[in-house]
């Protein structure tokens, strides 16, 4: 297996791990970590597939730098919001579906 494919496949695996975690884990901090793992997977694919004949291509590297900045900003916002939620409800989880579609059926 060539180097390019190793990076790309590792990236794809990380992406799948991240997406699964983001959807399935209930703890919000874990969700944020899962998002970061998902992001790393994407960056690995971007840089890994981007090389041409073993020489690195600068354009995907610039894109990954931009992507990292965006991911850091998003993580910071998510952490700030989760802290706020912890402060308000003293839980780091989504509360039990207060507005779910199930309840409005019972109300009527």
């Amino acid at each position, binding site marked *: 297996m060539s180097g390019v494919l190793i990076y790309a496949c590792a990236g794809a695996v990380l992406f799948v791990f991240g997406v699964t975690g983001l959807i399935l884990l209930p703890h919000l901090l874990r969700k944020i970590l899962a998002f970061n793992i998902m992001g790393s997977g994407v960056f690995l694919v971007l840089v890994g597939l981007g090389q041409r004949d073993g020489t690195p291509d600068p*354009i995907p590297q610039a894109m990954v730098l931009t992507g990292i900045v965006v991911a850091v900003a998003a993580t910071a916002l998510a952490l700030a919001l989760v802290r706020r939620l912890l402060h308000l409800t003293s839980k780091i989880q989504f509360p039990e579906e207060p507005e779910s579609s199930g309840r*409005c059926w019972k109300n009527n």
Partner: protein
Amino acid sequence: MFDPIPWLILLPLVWGCLTFLIGVGRGGRLVVAGLIIQLVLTIILARQIVMEGARHYAVGGWGAPLGVDLYVDGLTGIMLLLTHVVALPLVAYARAFFSSQAEGASYFWPLTCFLLAAMNALFMSADIFNIYVTLELLGLAAVGLVAAAGSAGPVTAAIRYLLVTLLGSGAYLMGVALLYGTYGSVSLAVLEPLLASTEISAAACLAAMLMLAGLLLKTALFPFHFWLPPAHGGAPAPVSALLSALVIKASFYLILRLWFDLFAPLVTTQAAQLLGGLGAAAILWGSILAFNQTRLKMLVAYSTVAQIGYLFLLFPLMTSAIPGAAESAMQGAVMQLVAHALAKAAMFTAAGVMVLSAGKDDIALLGGMSSHLPLTLFTFALAGITLMGLPPSGGFIAKWLLIDSAVSGGQWGWVVVMILGGLLSAAYVFKVLRQAFLPPVAGIKFKPVIRMLEWPAFLLALISLLLGFRSVEVLNLLGAG
């Protein structure tokens, strides 16, 4: 020749930074003035598009491979014009709204300006990576606006919205990575002929699926709509209006662009039918849930879920082989997009006034509203006319064009769905109106509201109604490039 393109991105960023520096909760007047300037710029740009057609703009004089290219055509012109026509009354409304209720006002002005800058940049982006960056900017600004109210409900909705939007743009970026790895470019202008001329690769198909799935999640198409009602229904009214009218349309615009330009060689009739089926489910399910709500703003939010469905009927209708059917489907979908944005902004702002006056968000408490706030109730009803698709509203033209396309293309199933959807939307609009004409609930005392809250909402509803008379101009602009 004066070129408004870069200014449409730079100016809102300038207003955003200035209002941030002026201080928390201040700077509303500056934003209103700034938006008037931007509206003039978009009108100039729309005229240029009609006269000279679509064109590219190289930011800073650096061309496509090295620099960032912007691209405007008729559809871009419509989206930019729509954004500013909706946003200007909304910021006037927001000034009055936050003077009556301080909750959520803290960073409204800078975040709104950043939101508009991101949206303008998104509409004009010509490469898929730049689109990713603008999508993230748009998402972060929107989440900030939802969370601004600060209590547990909105913060929970904001976190859920943030995670959904990050998941959506993550999937989108994965698609970008695959496309870059396969074709070595992110520019739409370069990728399009490459995808059309080379044999369809598995990587390109996977990329298309990931990108479209990410965008569908952000557009809140059924069954991905779970995050939308709490986020849109829980935010302060001006924010709900901005999100429901404009932000979800941005990701729909990208789906349109990608589906019909970039991924045109990949998409199949089955995929189009699937999207149409999801759209039909959204219309029916969203309308039924809207009818079952007990809170006014949640009702309006679920109505957004339903109205998004109409936009997705476009995809199966466009597969029709009959000439003219595809064209009127496209026109109908764009009219629906414009009419829904105007009507939903009007409906959310009117709902906000009623909730502010009643002091609590509950449909059962609306009794007596017809004599207390007749103008606002009239606004709500006018917006409802557009959502139901009665003449002469813009919604009527939209649904007429869509039904016309379905009939001439022989796709009768969608006609049934659209008519049922119209009836169901009449049901939930009349549920509110009926309650408002009942006598007041004992013990409830309506607070008086300032006039500046009622008029911008009415203006939006009026534009959505009169759009039916001016639809030719909109469709001209659509055909211009």
